[in-house]
Each structure stands twice: as C-alpha cells, then as structure tokens.
C-alpha cells in the first residue's frame, strides 16, 4: 500500500505538476477526506516542498549554453565597443546589482557591443550585452542600472530556459544528470540555435518581459539606484522613435507604452517613496568620453 501511495505521488510529479499544484491538490485531498483546514495547510506545504526538490541545472551547463549563445551574439551583432573604461564601468554597475540577487557570487559578465541599434540581451549563465546604440539613449547610471537589472532578471528568473523547455528535446538535452548537451555537439548546437532564435527573432513571452521589468527595477533599487531609471530610459526611446508603435525593441518586446505604464504604476504604489542615486555626473563623464555623447 505504501509503495502504491508513493507511486501516486510520483506520478503527480511526472505528470508535470509544479510544487504549488502538488500543494494545492494535497490540501484539497486532505479536506475532502475530513482533515481540518489548518492541519491540511501544514501537511500540504510539506508535500509541496518535497515536490519542489528536483535537481537544478548545474551552473557549468548553464554557462556552457550561455557561452555558445554569447559567441554567436558577438559574431552576428557586433564586436565589443573598443573602450576599456566603458567596458569596466558597465561591469561595475552590473556586478553591483548581481550582489542583490539570488545569484550573488555566481559568474556574470557584461559587455557593450559596437552596434547603433538599440538592444540588450542576456544568455543563461549570465553573459549580458547592451549595444552602444542603447547606451547612447541613456542619461544617467540609474537608467543603465535599470536596463542591466532587466537583463539580470531574465537570468535569475530563468526565462530563456523556460522558453526552451517548451521544445520536446529540451528535457533530455538540458535537464537531468546525463543531459546530451554535455556530450553531443549536435544537441548542443540545437539548444544554442534555439536560444538565439528566441533572443533575436521570436522574443520572450510578453509576461516574461513584464516580469523582467518588475524584478529588474527591484534589483536596481535594492542596489541603491533611483528605481525610475528604467522607466525614464524607455520614455527616452519612445520620444526618440516618435511613438509610432513600432521600432526599437518592439519586434521582440511588448510595446513601450505598456511597459512604461506598468512600471510607473508600481513606482507610484509599491515603490513610492523609495529613493536612490541617479549617478548622472559619473555616467556622463565616462560614457561621454567613450561614445562622444
């Protein structure tokens, strides 16, 4: 009987139930079988936690996939902008933010790409890029922090890996102890190509972009930056492109206006009264010297 019951629980997990769904079903089942609600809640919480105990993807595998995507990014989008002070500066801002995230201590790398188009992107494992075109649209360090916070959030929330998981081959290729990306170049190439297709063609789900905005703004604020940085940057973009409803970023991101509206609502509610540094002087000095802005 015991083994049958464990089997049933395992089947729930294999059936794709998340830990919260296991928790909800357990609580419902307990109440159905006559248990009082408080006790049902406690036992269900433990069951949910047990269900959540799935082995995570090792960081070297994440870095491996991210590294391949980074190589392809630089090959197709442009080389590193040739200014060492600018590159170091962007890394300092980015690494400051990483310290406030659940990935503090993990490897992250940041780079400005020499490309007039406005764009920024992140790969699994923490390779993060922002174009010189995007930096040219910024006015202060808080805006840079907002953009980097957004990209860091894509990594900490595992958005790319979650998008990839929709493909049938993902589980065997990337998850589990004998994932084929570690050994098989053909499978590895498939995963990297999928990732770059999501980055530069399809885009993330709209809700993932909104989530990255929300979490990224929080990360920047936790670091000590003015939380309005990302909103002000997006408003700069909207002004620059004339709010025509298409253009920079919007082939792979939700419309600028809807992003701005969501961020501003939070700034006026949950985040009201939270102050931070704008860092205009340092930004203008370093970026101005590098980009002639």
């Amino acid at each position: 009987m015991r083994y049958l019951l464990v089997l049933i629980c395992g089947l729930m997990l294999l059936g794709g139930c998340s830990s919260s769904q296991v928790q909800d079903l357990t609580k419902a089942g307990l109440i159905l079988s006559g248990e009082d609600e408080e006790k049902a809640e406690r036992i269900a919480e433990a069951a949910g936690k047990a269900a959540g105990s799935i082995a995570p993807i090792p960081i070297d595998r994440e870095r491996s996939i991210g590294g391949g995507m980074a190589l392809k990014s630089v090959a197709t989008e442009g080389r590193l902008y040739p200014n060492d002070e600018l590159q170091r500066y962007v890394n300092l801002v980015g690494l400051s933010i990483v310290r406030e995230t659940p990935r503090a201590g993990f490897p992250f790398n940041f780079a400005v790409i020499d490309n007039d188009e406005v764009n920024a992107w992140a790969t699994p494992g923490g390779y993060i890029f922002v174009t010189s075109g995007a930096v040219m649209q910024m006015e202060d360090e808080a805006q840079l922090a907002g953009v980097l916070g957004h990209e860091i959030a894509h990594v900490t929330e595992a958005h790319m890996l979650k998008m990839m998981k929709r493909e049938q081959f993902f589980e065997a290729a990337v998850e589990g102890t004998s994932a084929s990306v570690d050994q098989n170049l053909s499978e590895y190439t498939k995963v990297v190509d999928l990732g770059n297709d999501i980055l530069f063609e399809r885009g993330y789900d709209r809700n993932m972009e909104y989530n990255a905005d929300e979490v990224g703004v929080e990360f920047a604020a936790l670091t000590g930056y003015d939380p309005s940085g990302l909103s002000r940057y997006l408003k700069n973009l909207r002004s620059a492109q004339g709010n025509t409803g298409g253009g920079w970023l919007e082939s792979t991101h939700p419309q600028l206006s809807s992003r701005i509206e969501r961020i501003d609502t939070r700034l006026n509610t949950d985040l009201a009264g939270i102050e931070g540094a704008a860092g205009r002087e340092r930004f203008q000095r370093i970026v101005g010297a590098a980009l002639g802005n």
Partner: protein
Amino acid sequence: MKRMTARRFGALTVMACVVSALAVASDMGEQRPKEKVSVDLRLATDGLTGGGDIMAGEIVYSKRNSVDLKEGPRRSDETVATLDKGAELTVVDTRGAQLQVRTKRGVEGWVSKLNTTSDKPRGSLGDVKILTSDDLGPGERSNVGAIRGLQEMAEDYAAEVEVPQEAIDDVKKMEAITLTINQQDIDEFLEEGDVQ
C-alpha cells in the same frame, strides 16, 4: 470496475503525499545563517511612506530565494537567516523601505520590502530549476565563482559553426574584464557614486 469516490481519491492522494512530506526537513522557508555581507545600505527615511503602506501585523512573503534576513535595517548588519521564496513573515515594524519581521519559527530580523510581496508566490507549470546562492554550501560558493572561461562544448561549437576568431577573442576579453573586479572594487565604486 468500482468507481472511486471523491473521498477515497482524496484520501489516497493525501496519503501518498504525506509519505513524501514526512521525509522533508522541518525547516519551512529558513536556512542556516549566511556570511556577513559587507555592503552598506542607505535607509529610506524622512517623508517616505513606502506606498501601499505596510502595517504591523500584516503577513508578507519572501518574493525570491536567498533573501537575507538582517539583524538590523542597515545593509552592513549581520545576516541572521536567509529566506526561501514564499517564506511567510509577520510584519513587526517598518522603517521606510525596511521591514522588521518575524518568521513562522519566531526568528526576528529586517528585510527590504522590495524582497517581499503580500501575495504568496506560486510556482508555475513547467518550471525550470536553476541554482541560486542559497543552494550552495561555503565550499561550493567559491567553486561557482571560479567557473569562468568558455566551456569546452562552446569552443567546439565555435569551430563547428565557424565563429570568427575575433568574436571568440571578444567573449574571452569580456570574461577577462570581469576577473579584474573584486568585491572591494564594487564597494568603492558604490561609495564613490553615493549609491547605497
């Protein structure tokens, strides 16, 4: 075949999960104390309401994993515990953006309200699990920090798809720049920019 009643199905489901639940450690949302973080935190003061005011007695939840619960409201204060995503916290007091809270196990400390939410975070279907700082023991943390440089498979891929050597050199340079930055550099950078 006899139809299973809702009551019997509920009982079977519950018993299956209880077997697993009994194997789970008793800690619910808290882990061992972490090392001290050496970054100073500016308190949000004077005239700051914190919007959607959080009141003493309210229940909030840790919004993400690896959230530090501090001895005091300053960033430089000792960490007394780290919180898992979803950890339930009772608000005891507020000071600007900092909340004094009590965990379900009675541990008190301070947490930024930016790391909390009034709605209990839920998992999502098809979640992918990645490592966070809290998954690592002290020895593992230094190992993770040392995972740098392009992995072998990435280099094989570069050769296979004929990534230009200059692109490979650029990604290696990107990694090398980060290696020149240590925690003290970051502390000084934040201090110079008055980012606290």
